[in-house]
């Protein structure tokens, strides 16, 4: 049976309204946030319950049909890119917050819950959900779990992986399992550590238990304008070197500032070659003291204007420019590639200089927005697809920047995930043995390789047969399209 063939049985089992086969409707789901990859799925299931997901996955497993989970579709690595021969399981109708358990500092949510919604719901109890991707107004907790998403405040508070303590999970065989919970250290392997960040390749999360963080007593934010990124980078090093751990340190260069001004009129200081947003939070007695230090380091490293947010409204304005930066470059360029490389923070000045050289040599503009505190760069490589060859050149620049990150001992992705987009770069970071070893985990969870296949790993590999059930070469191996693993 093919994927479309599942429509009948799934309609009968789940209800007609949850199954989409109409071509126009299917096309709504043809891409995620990385819109230049497009595939129309054979079938879409709008899951409303764990049982809906499990029944769909069981049907897929029975017939060897691939499935892909989708949250809000804001992913930037093509992780939720559908399969033409597969089922897309959309989680966004599962959006109930099941429990805000402030006493235990935990919340239990369905995967379709929007990140910011959880914080809004928790706030009256004095708690919030710390991981805050810039897309937090729209992205789902399930997508965050799958991508191990970060955000500006992860410098101090850690990533999604540090905040998920349990999941209800549908395995690629369609079984519902529970991993972890509200208490720490459930005995056994840390399967949660494997599942979070696995980009939907190990199964589908149908519930998540997450940590809630106590709201800080005080939050103080400053915006500092520097003549160039070198000086802003030096200020960052001075702050971290002094032992201050700010909640966030974000940097934007001149081109990124120009775009943000055009899009949201954030009113950043004129003539800045770079701006830093530094936020401190915690007990008032600590924040007051450290804030003065931070201001001092900014001035000592050439900041020519420093603004301190007087209230939440002004703070929001500082952040508005930063958080809208990706979309904003749309104002200054018809097309762009968002990169997500990571470098050791101390290499920042050198890497930024190299990026500007690469950009100049190739004649491709690059705007830089990044989480400076942890060395996670988001170079925005600008191009116009209407001009012959520009897309290819942008792609080359983009690849060269990732090589630069790897040369400096960094990573090809800090938070957006590998997905479809960066799978080809994985061998630059990992040896065959490394990738084979990761594949062992995949084979343990998904021996038939039907859960979001083709993502994360560069070459499709097949899991070894269970001894005694050998059936001759797999068709993909015979066709030379996969290596037997």
């Amino acid at each position, binding site marked *: 049976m093919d994927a479309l063939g599942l429509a009948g049985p799934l309609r009968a089992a789940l209800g007609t309204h949850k199954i989409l086969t109409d071509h126009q409707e299917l096309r709504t789901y043809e891409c995620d946030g990385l819109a230049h990859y497009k595939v129309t799925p054979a079938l879409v299931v709008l899951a409303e319950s764990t049982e809906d997901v499990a029944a769909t996955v069981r049907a897929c497993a029975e017939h060897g049909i691939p499935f892909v989970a989708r949250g809000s579709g804001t992913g930037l690595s093509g992780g939720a890119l559908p399969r033409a021969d597969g089922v897309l399981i959309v989680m966004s109708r599962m959006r109930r917050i099941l429990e805000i358990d402030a*006493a*235990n500092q*935990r919340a239990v949510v369905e995967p379709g819950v929007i990140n910011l919604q959880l914080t809004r719901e928790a706030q009256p109890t*004095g708690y919030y959900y710390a991981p805050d991707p810039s897309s937090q107004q729209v992205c789902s907790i399930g997508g965050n779990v799958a*991508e191990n998403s*970060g955000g500006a405040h992860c410098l101090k508070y*850690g*990533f999604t*992986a*540090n905040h998920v303590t349990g999941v209800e999970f549908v395995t690629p065989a369609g079984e519902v*399992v529970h*991993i972890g919970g509200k*208490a*720490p*250290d*459930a*005995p*056994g*392997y*840390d*399967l*949660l*550590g*494997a599942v*979070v*960040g*696995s980009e939907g390749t190990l199964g589908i999360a149908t519930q998540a238990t997450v940590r809630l963080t*106590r709201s800080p007593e005080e939050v103080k934010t400053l915006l500092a304008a520097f003549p160039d990124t070198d000086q802003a980078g030096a200020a960052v090093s001075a702050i*971290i*070197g002094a*032992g201050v*751990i700010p909640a966030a340190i974000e940097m934007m260069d001149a081109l990124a500032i120009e775009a943000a001004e055009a899009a949201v009129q954030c009113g950043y200081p004129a003539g800045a070659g770079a701006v830093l947003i530094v936020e401190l939070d915690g*007990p008032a*007695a*600590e924040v007051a003291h450290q804030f003065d230090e931070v201001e001092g380091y900014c001035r000592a490293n050439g900041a020519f204007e420093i603004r301190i947010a007087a209230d939440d409204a002004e703070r929001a304005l500082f952040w508005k420019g930063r958080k809208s930066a990706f979309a904003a470059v749309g104002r200054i360029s018809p097309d762009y590639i968002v990169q997500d490389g990571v470098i*050791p923070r*101390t290499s920042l000045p050198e890497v930024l200089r190299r990026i500007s050289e690469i950009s100049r040599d190739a004649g491709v503009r690059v705007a830089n927005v990044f*989480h400076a505190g942890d060395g*996670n760069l988001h170079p925005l490589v600008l191009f116009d697809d209407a001009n012959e060859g520009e897309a290819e050149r942008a792609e080359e620049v983009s690849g060269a920047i990732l090589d630069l990150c790897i040369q400096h*001992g*960094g*990573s*090809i*992705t*800090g938070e*957006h995930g*590998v997905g479809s987009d*960066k799978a080809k770069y994985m061998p630059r*970071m*990992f040896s065959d*043995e*490394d*990738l084979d*070893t*990761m594949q*062992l*985990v*995949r*084979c343990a*969870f998904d021996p038939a390789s039907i859960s979001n296949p083709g993502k994360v790993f560069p070459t499709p590999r097949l899991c070894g047969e269970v001894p005694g059930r050998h059936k001759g070469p797999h068709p993909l191996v015979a066709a030379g399209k996969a290596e037997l693993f």
Partner: protein
Amino acid sequence: MAAILDALKAATDGHVADATAEDHVAGVPAQWVASPGSTAETSALLTAAAAHGLTVVARGAGTKLAWGAAPESVDLVVDTTRMSHVVEHAAGDLVVVAGAGRSLDDLERDLASADQRLGIDPPRRGTLGGAVATGATGPGRLFHGAVRDLLIGVRFVRADGVAAHAGGKVVKNVAGYDLGKLLTGSFGTLGVITEVAFRLHPNPAAQRWVTGPASEPSRIQQLASALAHSQLALSAVELDRSADDSSVAVLVEGTGPGVEHRAAEATRLMGEGSHETDTPPDWWGTEPASPSGVLVKVTHEIARLGTLLEALDAAAATTGLRVALRGSPAVGTALVGLAGLDGDDLAAAVHGFVAHLRAGAAAFGGSVVVLEAPPEVRDGLDVWGPVEALDLMRAVKDRFDPERRLAPGRFVGGI
């Protein structure tokens, strides 16, 4: 036998010895001890071990070697202590990369020169690899997170001798599966860890402890909840409780003026009898006394600490054992030591004690694991207790070590 020994020696430049009584693993005798000096040597060693079908147990300083169930057999002990070099301490990046055999104490000294620290402070110090393999933590976990949260890269050798790495040396990195987390707490059943990379933290300018009395479960719960809910950003909240004495202590860290202010606030919150000190109380960061040699790890939901303490008291009362506890109530973990009985009486009482606690575990939302116990107590005792998603764990083990040669039987469900 001679051929096997030769192969092991060839792999490790001669660093192989016959095992002695000292090299027993939880009472199980070993045949050889090999000490590879690098990942490459470990890879050659495990390749040789695989060729000869040897069972293998990895060992650091040996401080937690008896934790878990006893392995079914140990042909070869892989001693990691020759892999004790610091590969890189990137102070400006707050990252360290070191051999798995480096001791926590040595690393602490290395980092002190840069006024930095690794936030892993288990009562039993041992090596970095051992801390990762057992996931052992101490008071600092509230602020720093667990071992899994600090580990950013890992290099290890699989049962078949293949060396692999995952993660890297940057704090932020989502490329590929996070095998470091999978290896954390895997008790040597998935691979031999040879090198680890950690995120570091700057040493705080000032530290202060506040200690106060609290003995009734309800009072301890109330206090622990108030501290957890406070906006004081405490670095640690610890509980020390035994039959005759009980106190709660917190660690305040930060800038000088900030700490002074917050410590005063904590003292107020903790109420009558609490006092500030510049050094920790003497029980801080240590294991509870356990004359019986039994060490139990209990976890709980933080708001159900009181229920756990009541369950412990009840289990003690029904079995005649005396309980000593050191816990991190704002994290939800505790270590329990037992006293009061010996011989056959002890074994029966511990079995009863564990059964009693597990029967009530749903009420405190956690688990009960017997980390360590004398062989006669461990006999017939399910040290790990019930485990969720065991089939998936078995599937992982089957893929990494299909011949079950790495610490067979030591882990959950007989893995």
